[in-house]
């Protein structure tokens, strides 16, 4: 009996030793996957310049928000802004700092057809399963010059919870009342029809596999993989193809001071666009944070919204328009430690 007890105690001790914690001294961030290539480029450049190491994990927007709320990271990143309710629940004030702009392209596989126009209502009806073939009068009407085939439409959507889905369905809710009532807006949805595929690469795979398919894909992925995507009608009635200029143009609306705004269904530019944000606590004195950590974080955010923007274009990201950078400056300057503003 006795030796067994010793064994047991020793083993518990060893178990306990195995679960030891590690201490990190670098800046930690986690969240959205969409801006990951941009952030990782920016952060490695920042590391070379200042010798400050920033570790960003692209675990998804929802994960980024959760990690910030659990205070396990210095900053979170998200493609969809937190709702008023979510902000209220967090008790401590959270700031949304815009970092870049993204867009969702509507890609399709119709052999021989390289130019296609679509309206919001038509896209909604396709995703509701009401338009079933490509030569449907609703599609034919806006593409009078193209001879559309009688092929069945294979609808593809994201199966993983995604900011891309959130922007896409935010747009559909604005342009289609039936969509708003039946499906709604979110990162994961109860899709009435279609194949669910994981990630942009999964949707691209379905598009490649099945002629007659349609799917929504994050624009940079679509561009880099040379996919065919449609021109979408904006609120002013123009058919617009997504590009750096048209996406930036979509943000030319009245932006609130906290920058939490949806810019889909815009009058100007490409109508399925959106911001991506980094989220931080306004008061940096929480947990065991030191003032120097708050200083480092604030400097990083300032650099990312200013000099860091230079890395956008080469990676096909849209840099923030000047008006938005001005809003971001005010937000970053409001970050405080013990009631004292961190950025001088």
């Amino acid at each position, binding site marked *: 009996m006795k*030796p067994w007890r*010793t*064994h*047991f105690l*020793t*083993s*518990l001790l*060893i*178990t306990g030793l*195995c679960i030891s914690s590690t201490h990190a001294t670098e800046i930690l961030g986690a969240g959205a996957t969409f801006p990951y290539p941009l952030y990782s480029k920016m952060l490695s450049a920042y590391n070379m310049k200042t010798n400050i190491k920033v570790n960003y994990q692209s*675990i*998804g*927007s*929802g*994960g980024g*928000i*959760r990690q910030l709320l659990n205070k396990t990271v210095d900053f979170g990143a998200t493609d969809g802004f937190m709702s008023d309710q*979510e902000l209220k629940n967090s008790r401590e004030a959270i700031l949304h700092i815009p970092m870049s702009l993204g867009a969702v392209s509507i890609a399709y596989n119709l052999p021989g057809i390289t130019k296609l126009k679509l309206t919001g209502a038509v896209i909604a009806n396709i995703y509701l399963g009401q338009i079933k073939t490509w030569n449907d009068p609703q599609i034919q009407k806006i593409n009078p010059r193209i001879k559309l085939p009688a092929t069945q439409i*294979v609808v593809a959507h994201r*199966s*993983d*919870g*995604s*900011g891309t889905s959130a922007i896409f369905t935010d747009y559909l809710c604005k342009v289609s009342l039936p969509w708003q009532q039946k*499906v*709604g*807006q*979110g*990162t*994961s*949805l*109860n*899709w009435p029809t*279609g*194949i*669910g*595929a*994981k990630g942009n690469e*999964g949707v691209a*795979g*379905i598009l*490649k*596999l*099945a002629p007659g398919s349609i799917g929504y894909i994050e624009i940079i992925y679509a561009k880099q993989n040379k996919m065919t995507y449609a021109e979408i009608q904006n609120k002013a009635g123009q058919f617009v193809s997504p590009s750096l200029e048209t996406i930036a143009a979509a943000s030319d609306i009245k932006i609130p001071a906290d920058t939490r705004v949806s810019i889909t269904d815009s009058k100007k530019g490409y109508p399925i666009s959106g911001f991506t944000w980094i989220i931080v606590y306004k008061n940096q004195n929480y947990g065991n944070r030191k003032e120097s950590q708050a200083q480092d974080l604030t400097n990083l955010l300032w650099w990312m919204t200013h000099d860091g923007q230079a890395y956008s274009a080469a990676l096909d990201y849209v840099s923030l328009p000047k008006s938005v950078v001005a809003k971001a400056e005010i937000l970053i300057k409001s970050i405080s430690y013990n009631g004292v503003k961190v950025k001088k």
Partner: protein
Amino acid sequence: MSLKTIKNTQQKERLFQSLLSASGVIILVLVIGVFITLLIQSMPAIIAHKFDFFSHTTWDPVSGQYGGLSFLVGTLLTAFLALLISIPFSLSIAIVLGEYLTEGWIALILKTAIDLLAGIPSVIYGFWGLFVLAPWIRNLEIKLGVLPYGVGILTASLILALMIIPYAASLGREVIRLVPAELKEASLSLGATRYETVRKIILPYAKSGISAGFLLSLGRALSETMAVTMVIGNSNLLPTSIFSLGNTMASVLANEFSEANGSIYISSLLEIGLLLFVVTTIISLIGRRIIKKMSVHQ
């Protein structure tokens, strides 16, 4: 031997034993810990929708409806279909490598190839399934006149079958090789052919071990995530045929967990995790019983 060395040896022995029991305790603590965590975390969901979880097929995070029936059906359907498809192949491979081709370079190549199959990352299987297998299935579906998606329950089961063959085949091979030579020789000396020996002596002797291999591969099929997610079509509707799109418990978790927000939503996802844990445990317990009943009493 001096007293000191004896004491030293005893100490070493004790340390070794402690290390062994520590490993055992860690495993036990982990498994029970996982179960308790899942149970506690899924409590809000269990309280919120009681048994609706098992009877409803609507999974709608936007309106807050969480029914898990189609995921449960999808998991069981794909796993058992995959097992059914894989059995003839893994059994033949086990017999060939365990009895007919035990030595030589062909055996070595075959053996290496099978082991290699188990080492391929599942995302590669997923991509292969999506880009190579799915177009074939699509052509088949066009010929059969069903909706040509290419992906779905059948495609997922085929991929899974391919992935689980090595597990059952490797274990089966080892077990078949363990069949005592006297038994085989006795059978052959009585005038039985090789086929008869395999069927009447080797397989009955090795069947519990072979079944353990099938159980192992079934467990693998139940929990496989990435490859299935890529080819099953991820539709939350209840599958109506093997050509339907479907979804499994593991793939819903993989798909939605990272972006889930809202406590009931996360809790419902964890309830799926709990369900998967319980289903795997039940199937493994049933399997163990079957193996025990089958095993040869000596």
